[in-house]
């Protein structure tokens, strides 16, 4: 799959109004999204990968094949993304009693005491290639693939694939859909402690303690279209045209632009 993108930086003071404008443009209410994102980096040359993820993991063979293909191409940074809710932040882990039945992340909601169970955290591996160079088109275009990962602990399978933990952050924002385009107005949130860690957190701090990476609180507007077959020139052109159309519609509010290619460089040197 290919992904075509345009970006814009949105100062904090414009955020509220832009949300309204996007809601008007797309004729829909914003869909709030909160994600954990974990960055992994390949530490060894791709080669023979023995993926013994564990018997309990229910990865489908198809997904597994795709994952292997995706991860064997070269040395890359890659992201693991897991959806969370605001209630998950600052929530207790379920009791450590190994006999206790595993409960879903929101199973305890009825008791009024929300728990966050890391073991049930769903994950998706999001692979992105470095954007294509020298394209005449004014959009960022890159190869992409994603696959579901087993729930819960991802360090073990990721290490097995030759990836080591780099860092973790959260992304908070609102998504809109305009035909084929997903418009995501978001910002990066830091975890409060900057102490060294080597694996994703098993517990999340209270949401109020999260601080924006960009300290003025600005947002990033990302407009993207995925194309099934990147080799289909006509589809790629159509997708670009759609993005340009959006850029034109939004031009008096924000300037959507191609991203600096090297800022999206996922190659691990």
């Amino acid at each position: 799959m290919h992904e075509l993108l345009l970006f814009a930086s949105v100062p904090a003071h414009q955020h509220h109004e832009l949300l309204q404008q996007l809601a008007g443009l797309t004729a829909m209410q914003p869909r709030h999204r909160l994600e954990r994102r974990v960055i992994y980096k390949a530490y060894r040359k791709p080669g023979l990968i023995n993926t013994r993820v564990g018997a309990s993991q229910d990865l489908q063979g198809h997904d597994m094949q795709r994952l292997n293909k995706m991860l064997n191409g070269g040395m890359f940074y890659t992201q693991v993304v897991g959806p969370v809710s605001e209630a998950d932040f600052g929530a207790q882990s379920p009791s450590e009693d190994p006999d206790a039945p595993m409960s879903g992340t929101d199973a305890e909601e009825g008791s009024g005491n929300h728990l966050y169970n890391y073991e049930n955290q769903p994950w998706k591996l999001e692979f992105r290639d470095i954007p294509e160079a020298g394209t005449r088109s004014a959009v960022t275009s890159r190869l992409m693939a994603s696959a579901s990962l087993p729930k819960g602990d991802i360090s073990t399978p990721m290490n097995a694939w030759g990836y080591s933990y780099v860092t973790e952050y959260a992304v908070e924002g609102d998504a809109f859909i305009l035909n084929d385009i997903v418009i995501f107005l978001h910002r990066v949130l830091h975890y409060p402690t900057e102490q060294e860690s080597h694996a994703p957190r098993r517990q999340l701090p209270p949401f109020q303690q999260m601080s924006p990476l960009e300290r003025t609180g600005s947002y990033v507007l990302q407009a993207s279209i995925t194309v099934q077959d990147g080799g289909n020139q006509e589809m790629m052109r159509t997708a670009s045209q759609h993005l340009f159309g959006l850029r034109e519609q939004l031009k008096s509010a924000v300037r959507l632009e191609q991203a600096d290619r090297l800022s999206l460089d996922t190659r691990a040197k």
Partner: protein
Amino acid sequence: MSAPKQDQLKTLEQSRQRLVQLTHSLASLITSLNQSDPLPPWNSLQSQASIISKNLLSVSDHLSDNRELLTSLVAYPGPEYPSRTQANTLEQLLRTKLDPRVDDWVARGRKAGASALEDKGTLSEADLAELWDWAPVEANEEARQRNWGGNFTLEEREAGVQNVVTGLRRVLEDEGDESSEEEEGEEDEMEVVGVRRQSTGAGFEFDIAPASAHQKPVEPVVPLDGILRYMTTGVSPGNR
């Protein structure tokens, strides 16, 4: 009989300069008429007309201010002038007789001026003179009481600007009122579609409104590529 003195020559030089301006402005009107089909934009046409009129007025003011000098100055060809071969040009230059159409125009003015006095029901010559003395001052005064341009009329401002139904959500600023800058009570609810008046005056334009002063504008300190780089590889901005 004497040759013109230095200051008189200066007056003549001023006449020349003003005529130069008038000639230029007329020439530029002709050029722009020739270059456009069917007509230049009305606003450019109007501004040209206004320039011509200003230059014309400047010539006319000058002529009347220096009436005494100019009526007592006579011009005649010097011996150097090739009168024999260029008599026509000379005649053209020294012509004082009015063009027949202008002559007719003067005649009509004369007739109108005379008949105005003949009619018993209208103002006498003295009354007219008085009226014409009075009117410009009075009209000017009236004009000064108005605010030409601005969002509210004088009457509206006296009755209280807040009572005016504009139908607009945004608050129109009242330039006439110095204190208005302190009231920053813009409504919370923003229109998705903004309306603004185009500066060229051609109606309204509807647009997705650019950022308004909702919050204190603070520009981001981390550039976009810094954020994207962090999101991609975890490299903190400014830490490269």
